[in-house]
């Protein structure tokens, strides 16, 4: 428990670096949030900048931002005037988490058995077929699969809606989640196959076989648990990839998730919006990585010992 707490505290410096780096990068960009309105009189622009505190020295703005962030306040959006960044995130986050979480669950539920099956059918037809399909699955990014799926199932077959989000009904979810899950699913299948094959070649498996254990027991009890280590370790990067993929998925399917307004915000110099969203994305990725690490430490005491040393 104290281990988990210590790891959680260890996130604070990383988060601090992320916030600072993001702040500097956003501010280095030429132009400001109030530049694009051509009719804006200089006095009004100055007033606006004063209202948002943009007239202060950059260092002071940074400290002020950190102070507000410590209270969980990401500030008002500078372009979407009626919203605070917190409100926009509260709207988008559940959508993104729903499709991201479902995509991750789907790729685990299908990827793991596929990989295991391929490993058991090593070098036979099924294995070859699975390896070829997964190679294709990894090479095709979600922004290719998403429109293609929408084209086939939405436009030609008319089975599912092409886009939209009516309160997150199942029919709206299917295509985005599948498109988002495919590359991760394919990679997880390959990883599981490689890992299972590696463990299956170790001496203790031969010993188990010599002892006369049933093949099912060998695979499920002796091979699978240690083989899941690398698979589990990949879940962190997988989650980060799924979050990045959700940016395009949300664009293609017109979903009101976290990705909405991010690109526009970045182009319009909506400082607070971009910073806020990047910070939330980063925190999500870090927390997921931590969760995966803790899970691995729980399953494998060697990791705990190594980290402490």
């Amino acid at each position, binding site marked *: 428990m104290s281990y988990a707490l210590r790891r959680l505290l260890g996130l604070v410096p*990383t988060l601090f*670096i*992320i916030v600072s*780096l*993001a702040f500097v*990068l*956003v501010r*280095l*960009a*030429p132009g400001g949030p109030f530049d694009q309105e051509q009719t804006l009189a200089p006095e009004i622009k100055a007033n606006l900048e004063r209202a948002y505190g943009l007239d202060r020295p950059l260092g002071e703005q940074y400290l002020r931002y950190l102070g507000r962030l410590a209270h969980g306040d990401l500030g008002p959006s500078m372009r979407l005037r009626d919203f605070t960044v917190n409100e926009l995130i509260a709207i988008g986050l559940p959508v993104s988490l729903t499709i991201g979480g479902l995509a991750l669950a789907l790729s685990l539920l299908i990827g793991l058995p596929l990989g295991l099956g391929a490993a058991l059918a090593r070098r036979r037809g099924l294995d070859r077929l699975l390896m070829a399909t997964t*190679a*294709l699955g*990894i*090479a*095709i*990014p979600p*922004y*290719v699969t*998403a*429109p*293609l799926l*929408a*084209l086939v199932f939405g*436009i030609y077959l008319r089975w599912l809606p*092409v886009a939209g989000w009516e309160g997150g009904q199942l029919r709206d979810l299917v295509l985005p989640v599948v498109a988002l899950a495919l590359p991760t699913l394919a990679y997880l299948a390959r990883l599981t196959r490689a890992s299972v094959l590696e463990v299956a070649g170790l001496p203790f498996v031969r010993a188990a076989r010599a002892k006369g254990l049933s093949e099912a027991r060998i695979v499920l009890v002796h091979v699978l648990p240690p083989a899941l280590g690398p698979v589990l370790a990949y879940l962190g990067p997988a989650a*980060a990839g799924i*979050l*990045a993929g959700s*940016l*395009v998925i949300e*664009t*293609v399917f017109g979903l009101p998730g976290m990705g909405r307004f*991010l*690109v526009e915000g*970045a*182009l319009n110099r909506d400082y607070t919006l*971009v910073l806020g969203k*990047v910070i939330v*994305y*980063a925190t999500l*990725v*870090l927390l997921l*990585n931590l969760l995966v690490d803790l899970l691995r430490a729980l399953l494998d005491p060697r990791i705990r010992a190594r980290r402490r040393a």
Partner: protein
Amino acid sequence: MRRRWHWFERDLAARAGLVALASIALLALAGPLASPWRVDELDWARIGVAPGLEAAHWFGTDRLGRDLFVRTLAGVRVSLAIGLLATLVSLLIGVAWGAIAGYAGGRLEGAMMRVVDVFYSLPYVFFVILLTVTLGRSPATLFISIGAVGWLTMARVVCAQTESLRHKEFIEAAVAAGLPVRRILVRHVLPNLAGPVLVYATLTVPGVILIESFLSFLGLGVQEPAASLGNLMAQGTAEMESAPWMLLAPCAFLVAIVLALGFVGDGLRDHLDPRER
């Protein structure tokens, strides 16, 4: 050398990948010469026509009447160029960083690799987005920003490799002979890194190409009227109901390039990576 490349004659996937890659590159370079159309030329008489032989619009046209054969191939050139250049940037940074850290060892190595660890834990795509915003949207900033973030794996690989080299006899001999550190690094360490560096560079290229098309798809990468596979796909997605060919051609080329590069990279890794032997 002969023996080294012997595997290549037997590795069907790697050979097919290389042939496909060469054909695509050749088509991207020579194809536009065969077409009467230019990248930004408008054919007012034939707006949004399907692929066919009419007026040499082999891949059809978009809703401005621009020829998609020429535009798709232009996108392929952009993808390949950015893939190579950004990989070169990440290779330069990664090799320098990793070789110095690995050779120095001790506290300096710890600090340098800690930096890599921290960057590793950052959600990298979001920082590429921030970088493209900071540096403005142009192909040059695109490959700098992708390359600047993509060097981490290379640094790790090179660092581990250099560390194992450092205690080899020939390096110790060079140290004993009083060669300056820079000369040892450049003349003795770097040439011995060539194998793994080549392998990881090949594996970086498809990743970089995917990031470029991802950014262009979102509108942060290559800008209109220039064509890239990513922005062609974004336009194709918007028009897919009435003009699906706008989507299919760039998708097919992107997938073919990434797959071919993957096959070549896997082949190289299986046969050149010392850890696989």
